[in-house]
């Protein structure tokens, strides 16, 4: 028994070690330009961390055409614990992938009874190049998270098959619900469970015998299918929600929107893509991708790059002479006259006060921009800034009376 425990510990620690060693560099990477901006660092709900309002938002939103409440909550928790920088997200992605590698081993070992073969499968899963996208790309938190719950679902199901107790069936359903709320790709899980019933569990009466030593009681196919009806109903419900979420961003086109001749014309293009042309594309472009690219081009066109702006600096030899006060007033007035054309940079790296003078709470700072210097472009600069509130740029209401209540709120925020 002790020897078996030692072997288990050796395999699990081995899996942990090779996974962490293979993906160690990921923890030091930054954000990338694809989806990370929209999902993470320009999403105030994620960077704002876990709060009651953001919690509600996560359960209600179809943001970016997806319904991913558990993924949002997980990202918010990371932002709360480690801040809005990229490293916390990366390390948590790696932690989930490491846990997944161990879970793969446990699922295969329990299902087949084979120890070293299961360990080999888990090791291949841990360091397989196909996993890189899911682990290193922060947005793919949904992938590692749903995988985590999916493997836990499989473990709970194996336990249910072994003990045939309803509490393990309930646990299977609960974990499957979590899987679907992290990402909807694994709605196919009921079919996977049916396949597991066929092999390696050997539950189908007419199928092969169980691979594992402790064989479960055999059932007829209708019995096995009835057993899968509740998870199938859950999958159907989440598919309906997903279609609604995708439709909310215009990602699902009406079948009559494109003439039949165009569908036919698209056939050779699809073949071309499948026969190697897609090497030039990351993947077949989705309407959402095209929309984002066009939006970006439109924004560039609205601000032609040849118009070189004027740079003005306010300097002094000592602090406390009112530089920030002047900067804020000049920027506010010129910003009011030319909306969206004035950028105020508070280069006081030690302790800037411009944001406070404008009643702003910036979510990104110069340090964040410096971290992203390799991919800094005009769009990123525009999205890094804190917009002045409408009261500053539009309203011209006169400040005629003292407002001690607002002052107290600013000095001692609730």
């Amino acid at each position, binding site marked *: 028994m002790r020897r078996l425990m030692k072997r288990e510990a050796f395999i699990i620690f081995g899996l942990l070690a090779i996974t962490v060693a293979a993906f160690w560099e990921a923890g030091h990477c930054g954000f990338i330009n694809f989806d990370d901006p929209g999902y993470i660092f320009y999403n105030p709900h994620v960077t704002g961390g876990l709060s009651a309002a953001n919690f509600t938002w996560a359960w209600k939103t179809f943001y970016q055409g997806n319904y991913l409440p558990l993924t949002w909550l997980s990202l918010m928790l990371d932002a709360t614990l480690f801040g809005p920088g990229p490293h916390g997200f990366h390390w948590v992605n790696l932690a989930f992938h490491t846990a997944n590698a161990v879970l793969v081993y446990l699922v295969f070992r329990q299902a087949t009874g084979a120890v070293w073969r299961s360990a080999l499968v888990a090791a291949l899963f841990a360091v397989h190049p196909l996993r890189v996208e899911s682990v290193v790309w922060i947005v793919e938190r949904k992938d590692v998270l749903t995988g985590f719950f999916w493997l836990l679902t499989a473990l709970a199901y194996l336990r249910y098959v072994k003990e045939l107790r309803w509490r393990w069936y309930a646990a299977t359903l609960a974990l499957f619900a979590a899987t679907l709320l992290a990402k909807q790709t694994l709605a196919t899980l009921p079919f996977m469970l049916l396949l597991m019933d066929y092999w390696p569990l050997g539950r189908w009466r007419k199928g092969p015998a169980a691979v594992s030593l402790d064989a479960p009681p055999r059932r007829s196919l209708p019995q096995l299918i009835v057993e899968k009806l509740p998870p199938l109903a859950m999958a159907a419900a989440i598919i309906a929600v997903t279609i609604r979420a995708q439709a909310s961003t215009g990602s699902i086109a009406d079948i009559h929107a494109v003439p039949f001749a165009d569908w036919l014309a698209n056939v050779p293009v699809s073949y071309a893509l499948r026969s190697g042309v897609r090497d030039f594309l990351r993947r077949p472009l989705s309407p959402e991708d095209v929309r984002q690219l066009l939006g970006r081009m439109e924004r560039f066109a609205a*601000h*032609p790059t040849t118009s070189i*702006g004027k740079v003005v600096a*306010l*300097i*002094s030899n000592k602090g406390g002479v009112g530089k920030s006060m002047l900067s804020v007033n000049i920027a506010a*007035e010129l910003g009011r006259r030319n909306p969206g054309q*004035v950028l105020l940079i508070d280069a006081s790296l030690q302790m800037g006060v411009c944001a406070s003078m404008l009643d702003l709470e910036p979510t990104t700072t110069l340090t964040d921009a410096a971290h992203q210097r390799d991919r800094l472009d005009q769009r990123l600069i525009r999205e890094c800034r804190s917009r002045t509130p409408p009261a500053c740029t539009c309203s011209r*209401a006169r400040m005629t009376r003292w407002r001690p209540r607002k002052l107290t709120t*600013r000095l001692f925020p609730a």
Partner: protein
Amino acid sequence: MQLARRAYDLVLVDTFPMVDRVMTAILDLTDVIYAVTESTVPTARSTVKLLQLLDQIGIPSMRRRIILNRHSSFAGNLRAADVASRCECAIDHVIPYEKKLLIAANLGRPLILDAGRFSSFGRAMRPLIEEIGKPRSPSNPEMFAPQDRRPDSAVSRTIRLTESVLDDSPVAPPAVKPPSKRIKKA
């Protein structure tokens, strides 16, 4: 900074009072530098040193302006002419002290947005704001008049985009007109 100036018509930098690598890089890219001083002897004396330092690091005087901030006229305080004399240069703008500035800072709303026609602060700030808001060079007269921007064809936009990517040459020094109201040094 170069990217920022391509994205915005005006980039205003509020610096930290320390000359380091960051500050030097900012000053190199800046079209106009406004040195802010006060009407107290220690600040005026330190401004002299700052201007000397700017001379030593090669910032030409034509790119510099002096702002006398939070100025009050009362017995015992320095006059603008006194500060100009000590600095051995003209004071370009005198911004008066106003109690409402403190209230504005506390409320997080710039006073200029609420400064009326008769506000001394508003009156003093307007020439400064007009000066800063002027286009950077005559070659780009459309700046700060986006509503007047002529419609642009896709071809010309593409050509200009390509040129801007290929063109990495440094930006020519600005042609800033001298301010209209300069207080002569005593």
